[in-house]
């Protein structure tokens, strides 16, 4: 039974007033390595049917994996029964009626281990080079293709095929005291130059041969695009309109309401999402398997378009459903699976920002980022795999790691320079979010709260 047949059969069964049917099909291939050798690998397939039944304004959701044709009616009946037994859903709205894709009937697209047919030999050569040069390579390469099919009783028939690939490469000295990391996001691994990445890491390990111990404190700091993406993704995940309106987040206005319209940065920065942005193309309609604070099953199929979250330094929109938009009086702006930050005035490259630094720190990436205080969105975490001291425009050595305590909202207000935005891979969050375009930024007083002994 194809996903399209599953959708049509589930919708055709008698029972609930209305239904939304979602079929997710996925395939993955991965290679993991440590110490210049493979450690684990695998290929997988998955298939999931989610039936959202609506009876009056009650909703029932049942989701099952690997459903056989003879089990379909039972899944639908379970969702129908749950809907009949449910209280009225407060997010109930008319189902989205419009939308169909010309490739609806096309077969499911899949990946396989062959996606690494060019990459794996190149990686093997890097292992040999690294071994001969006294480096050890660690990392992970993964490719997946996720297809989603959404149909509804109101005639909606949307599908999306999303390829997602990522490579993390980490080089270490044999005694593990020096470490450097690089990561790339890709759609198909054809554009991944693992040899060039390895050469970059070799240069960074060379930088680390001179070790400089610095105490905790506030430092002028250059954050590269990957580190900026980790901070801004957390900000984006904390930008729910409902939570802000309920007074629970940094975007709540004291005394009631939200901070939409408020200036967060004096620099002309823009933080936005755009499903059509080249290189980070993503799902252009809403998919919700269950309702929650920032998504509604009734919004399934809602068109997603270019959306500003911050424009000209000012908070413009918060993440929300049609229901929460009515509560807050703001536009309906559901979450989109990419994030872009740009400066309206352009900016220099990371290398140019290093060259323009008298004395400061260059961070490679941030790690174990967790929220300390939702009121300010204070986050804590660690620097990792390379903190370098820059003096007179050049890297002069590697510095110890630090624990930081900083709020990305506060950083928007304190940053003094925003560089050129590039496609990047967030280090911390790339299990969940890989599509980002970010600039490097300069912060005059980044709070390195304490020294971490970790290498």
């Amino acid at each position, binding site marked *: 039974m194809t996903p399209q047949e599953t959708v049509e059969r589930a919708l055709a069964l008698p029972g609930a007033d209305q239904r939304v049917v979602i079929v997710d099909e996925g395939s*993955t291939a*991965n*290679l993991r390595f*440590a*110490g210049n*050798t*493979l450690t*684990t*690998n*695998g*290929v*997988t*397939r*998955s298939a*999931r049917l989610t039936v959202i039944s609506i009876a009056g304004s009650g909703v029932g959701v*049942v*989701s*099952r*994996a*690997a459903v056989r044709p003879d089990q379909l009616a039972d899944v639908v009946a*379970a969702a129908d029964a749950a809907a009949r*037994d*449910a209280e009225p859903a*407060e997010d109930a709205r008319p189902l989205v009626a419009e939308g169909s894709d010309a490739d609806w009937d096309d077969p499911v697209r899949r990946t396989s*281990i062959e996606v*690494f047919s060019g990459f*794996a030999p190149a*990686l*093997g050569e890097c292992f040999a080079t690294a071994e001969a040069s006294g480096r050890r390579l*660690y*990392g*992970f390469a993964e490719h997946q293709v996720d297809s989603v099919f959404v149909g509804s009783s109101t005639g909606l028939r949307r599908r999306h095929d999303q390829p997602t690939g990522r490579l*993390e490469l*980490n080089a*270490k000295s044999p005694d593990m005291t020096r470490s450097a990391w690089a990561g790339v996001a890709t759609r198909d691994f054809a554009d991944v130059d693992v040899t060039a990445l390895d050469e970059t890491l070799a240069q960074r390990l060379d930088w680390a041969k001179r070790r400089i111990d610095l105490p905790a404190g506030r430092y002028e700091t250059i954050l590269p695009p990957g580190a900026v993406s980790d901070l801004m993704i957390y900000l984006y995940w904390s930008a729910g309109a409902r939570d802000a309106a*309920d007074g*629970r987040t940094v975007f709540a206005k*004291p005394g009631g309401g939200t901070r939409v319209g408020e200036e967060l940065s004096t620099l002309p920065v823009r933080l936005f999402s755009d499903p059509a942005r080249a290189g980070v193309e993503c799902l252009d309609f809403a998919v919700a*398997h269950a*309702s*929650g*604070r920032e998504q509604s*099953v009734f919004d399934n199929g809602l068109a997603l378009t270019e959306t500003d979250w911050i424009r000209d330094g000012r908070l413009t929109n918060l993440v929300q459903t049609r229901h929460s938009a009515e509560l807050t009086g703001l536009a309906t702006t559901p979450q989109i699976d990419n994030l872009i930050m740009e400066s309206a005035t352009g900016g220099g490259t990371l290398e140019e920002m290093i060259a323009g630094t008298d004395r400061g720190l260059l961070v490679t990436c941030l*790690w174990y*980022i*967790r929220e*300390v205080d939702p009121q*300010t969105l204070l986050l*804590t975490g*660690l620097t990792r795999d390379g903190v370098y001291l820059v003096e007179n425009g050049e890297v002069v050595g590697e510095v110890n*790691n630090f*624990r930081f*305590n900083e709020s990305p909202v506060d950083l928007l207000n304190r940053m003094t320079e925003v560089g050129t935005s590039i496609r990047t891979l967030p280090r911390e969050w790339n*299990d969940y979010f890989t599509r980002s375009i970010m600039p490097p930024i300069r912060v005059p007083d980044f*709070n390195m*709260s*304490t*020294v*971490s002994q*970790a290498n």
Partner: protein
Amino acid sequence: MREIDPDFLALPLRRLADAALTRARELGAEHASFRLERVRAETLRLFDARLEGSIDADDLGFAVRVVKDGTWGFAAGIELTPEAAAAVAEQAVTVAQVSAPINREPVELAPEGVYADVTWVSAYDIDPFDVPLREKVDLLGDWSRGLLGQVDHVSASLMQVKEQKFYADSAGTITTQQRVRVHPSITVMKSDGERFDDMRTLAPPVGRGYEYLTGTGWDFPAELATLPELLAEKLAAPSVESGRYDLVVHPSNLWLTIHESIGHATELDRALGYEAAYAGTSFATFDQLGELTYGSKIMNVTGDRTAEHGLATVGWDDEGVQAQSFDIVRDGTLTGYQLDRRMALLKGLGRSNGCAFADSPGHPPLQRMANVSLRPAEGGPSTEELIAGVDNGIYVLGDKSWSIDMQRYNFQFTGQRFYRISGGKLAGQLRDVAYQATTTDFWRSMDAVGGPHTYVLGGAFNCGKGQPGQVAPVSHGCPSARFRNVRILNTVQEGGK
């Protein structure tokens, strides 16, 4: 003792296993295992006593893992037919062959006995999936309505999981297991117009059934009744003055510190560098086994997969190794690691202590955490007696924010409630508190552990590790304990305010 659900046993478990293992043998695999799993999870969330969303989802599929010419090969499938199982076995062998050129370390596994057709079911009374959704929503709604009016908002959630696993390997072991876990949680929120704050129940997630919500193992009505007043006090509490304080830490907070600074630090795969690019390594390197002074002499830590109601408790692990209990820290010294079969053999440690786990049929087993627990002191003090021994300190309850570096040295934790201790007595709540320390400094500063009556089994459903990422449920038992001269931060000042 409950039995494994008949509808799981009715799946073609043995036919698929036989097809996969036979095909793997035909293709020359030195070792092969077959694992079929169904993991059912239901989550419901209420806000201000109204159902916000619920989903009842399962994951069903199978996996074949082989060792072929010394290289792992893993593949997973979803069609429950012997033909598909054999095809997935072929895929696993192909993956091993494609990967062989980049493998320089032949895979060998520690020996383990053969367990021919054994079963195990966790300890629970009421299967949460036998309880109608409406009944659960009504219960959480009643709890929420009892709090509204005293606080601004109430958030309630209930996560329930039933995990069923069938495992068979080429040595002849066949295990069939079923376990259940639940995690109810209530958070209350309040604002004074300028600041807002929240407070969550301390009730831990447990390996029990629905009876946990109705009086067995926790008194929810009693805990909920205290929350509004505690939150009001927290909102009005003075901000902490940063500096160094003695701490008394309740098990509801200490479990997470154990998890991060001992549990992960004593995973042998981490200590050997296999997680170096992602989760990280460990300061507790293998050369320090038997030598490292991890903590004070009163520190005794065990790993186990046997504790009743423990979230990491099983009968056999995902490599067919029988569940065990073992020492990790004895009298303050590092004495053991958590192992899977490959790690055990690699370092000549003999038998695996049974810590292999895969979170779904689509993922291979990794070395995952046992229930890692701090032992109480026989005849040891009560929490009140621990507090009485502090002149200027802070009493910490409940977990909240956590972060630790990639070698498990430097950590920072917050909590649900912090009380000032002055002259051996509690002197009201404090806010904006975080404690920050280096792992060995912290555990070496522990000068007293509570007695068995202070011992609580805490834990989490969602411990993350590995690439592709996997989550594992795990429990950590501990008594209340006292630590001297720990660095306390004021989180508002840390934010530059």
